[in-house]
């Protein structure tokens, strides 16, 4: 592991708007440099994306960007990040994706020309490799098309490159359903880590070629799937909280291979990554309820350098088009955080305390995101010599934090979930000390038809 110590050691230094290693964009936005900026993401209403619908699709994006940036300028946003997260056909056919990139960049340029609004585009192609079952991770059409879109977008002017990569997900869903921590660690820390190493080496090469920035990845398909399943009462919240802690190890690999932030919004593991790496992070919370529900609405913003809405469909609301409405909400949230920062550290820490304390006691997933738990789990991760052991350490530290919260009466855990704390500890006790032995153990357990070990180099 590249990181063997924390960049942020003191929980009180883990704060919104300030990152030890801020990022300066071409337009002059300093992300993590003392201001929280809004990051807007949007998607289409129900509409199939194909050659015959691209004219309609393009018009949606033209309307979205013009209206949302106009509102951002009216509200005097100091700058905005626009994230273009494609839908799968736009990555499968890179010319579709590129057409939208150009529309968005044109809209951003126009807003700068008309209003002086600073902005930067984050480009997030789909990781379509999982369309092959079992997934083919290192070659083939899905891999090639994805890289093609990264290259074309970076060349066109998309400055931040991100992805929600899926290596290991083909086993992780089942691991969640079974509440099997061994299989979670195999998916995230063995398969996921190896895929991240391969993927991010490649993305780093693309970024260097075009002079753009590798921003970061997210364990959305892992940690947020667990969170949503917990919201639906399918799996225990304590289990989802521990999965979150383990997911840090996988996403960290992006930063070991060239990413420098801002981490992608839906990575609720980002506070840990900020503590470890010092790079700025995007977060989402209450303003992403348009995309998914969560128990982390306020606490997530405690660490945000960018504040995002995850994704909203371009539908008409009473206040206007939904992306514009969400731009306004994000800007007001950012204003509040920036006002606190402007008043000084004490005010900022007061606001952070309110954001943290208003969520932390009510849900185990929020509890692991308290500054003290973030630092404790991050410290446990960087103390380990490899990603496998780091995953176990993250899980054990998260469970210890949950037990401590329960014992002190500071954390509410539903009675039917409490036994899962012991069950998870027992599962961890059964894991071998050595990753080689672990891999052999897991290979005998998981469904071999679902993944290709050779695609992960094991």
């Amino acid at each position, binding site marked *: 592991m590249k990181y063997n110590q924390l960049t942020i050691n003191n929980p009180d230094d883990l704060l919104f708007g300030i990152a030890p290693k801020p990022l300066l964009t071409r337009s002059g936005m300093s992300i993590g440099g003392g201001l929280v900026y809004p990051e807007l993401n949007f998607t*289409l209403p*129900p509409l199939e994306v194909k050659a015959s619908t691209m004219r309609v699709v393009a018009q949606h994006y033209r309307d979205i960007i013009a209206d949302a940036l106009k509102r951002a300028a009216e509200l005097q946003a100091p700058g905005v990040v626009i994230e273009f997260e494609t839908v799968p*056909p736009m990555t499968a056919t890179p010319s579709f994706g590129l057409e939208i990139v150009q529309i968005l960049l044109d809209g951003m340029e126009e807003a700068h020309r008309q209003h002086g609004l600073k902005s930067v585009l984050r480009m997030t192609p789909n990781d379509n490799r999982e369309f092959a079952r079992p997934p083919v991770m290192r070659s083939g059409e899905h891999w090639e098309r994805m890289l093609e879109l990264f290259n074309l977008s970076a060349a066109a002017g998309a400055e931040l490159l991100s992805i929600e990569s899926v290596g290991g997900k083909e086993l992780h869903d089942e691991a969640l*359903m079974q*509440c099997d921590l061994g299989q979670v660690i195999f998916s995230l820390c063995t398969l996921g880590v190896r895929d991240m190493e391969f993927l991010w080496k490649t993305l780093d090469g693309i970024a260097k070629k075009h002079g753009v920035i590798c921003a970061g990845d997210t364990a959305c398909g892992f940690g947020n799937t667990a969170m949503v399943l917990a919201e639906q*009462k399918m799996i225990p919240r304590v289990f989802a909280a521990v999965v979150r802690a383990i997911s840090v190890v996988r996403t960290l690999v992006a930063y070991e291979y060239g990413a420098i932030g801002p981490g992608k919004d839906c990575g609720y593991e980002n506070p840990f990554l900020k503590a470890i790496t010092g790079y700025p992070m995007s977060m989402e919370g209450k303003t992403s309820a348009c995309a998914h529900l969560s128990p982390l609405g306020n606490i997530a913003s405690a660490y945000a350098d960018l504040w995002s809405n995850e994704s909203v469909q371009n539908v008409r609301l009473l206040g206007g088009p939904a992306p514009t409405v969400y731009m306004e909400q994000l800007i007001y949230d950012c204003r509040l955080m920036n006002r606190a920062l402007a008043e000084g550290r004490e005010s900022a820490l007061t606001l952070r305390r309110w954001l943290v304390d208003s969520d932390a006691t009510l849900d185990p997933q929020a509890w692991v995101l308290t500054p003290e738990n973030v630092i404790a789990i991050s410290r446990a991760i960087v103390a380990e010599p490899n990603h496998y052991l780091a995953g176990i350490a993250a899980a054990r530290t998260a469970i210890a934090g949950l037990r401590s919260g329960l014992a002190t009466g500071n954390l509410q855990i539903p009675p039917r979930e409490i036994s899962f704390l012991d069950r998870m500890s027992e599962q961890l006790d059964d894991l071998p000390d050595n990753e080689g032995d672990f891999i052999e153990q897991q290979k005998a357990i998981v469904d071999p038809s679902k993944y290709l070990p050779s695609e992960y180099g094991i």
Partner: protein
Amino acid sequence: MTTLQELAMAVSSGNRKAAKALTIQALDEGVSPGDLVDLSLVPAMAAVGERFKNNEIFVPEMLIAARAMKESMTVLEPRLLAAGITPKYTAVIGTVEGDLHDIGKNLVSVMWKGANVQVIDLGTNVSSAKFVEAIREHKPQVVGLSALLTTTMPALGETVRVIRASDAPPVKIMIGGAPINQHYADEIGADGYAPDAGTAVDKILTLLGAI
């Protein structure tokens, strides 16, 4: 407590070893394989499904019960086959073209199997043609279609349209997925919609006329 009652308890508590032993014991006592399924396994899984629906247990606990039932079925299946007893109902299920999400679909499969419905799972990213082909081959009473993305919702409508227009045997169509609601099901001509896996059991049994 009768052996069938004990078996039901073993299944609902996820005790695979006991489920297998009690299945053998019940057969030795002269209980027919069909009665064993109908009077013990299916009611046990129905109770488990009910507990899940009432938020008393989580999915992994439900899956443990399903595995215990499967253990019992490994003993029963050869005998059911020999006696010419096949599951009364068959369903084909899959996630529509362009969509890879399958957690919800997989849960529905488990629940339907628990209700003694034979489930043919076509997986994810399934084209409408593949659904039609499966209907021709397996002659199910019900087809379940799933989609999670707003951008793949249109594929639900397209699949319903292609199935209805095909020469495949008539079939009831159920749909589900996060962005779906009853209104959308009505709009595209589906016969049923279920918001979650628990409700999907009630819905399929209603469509089958079994309740």
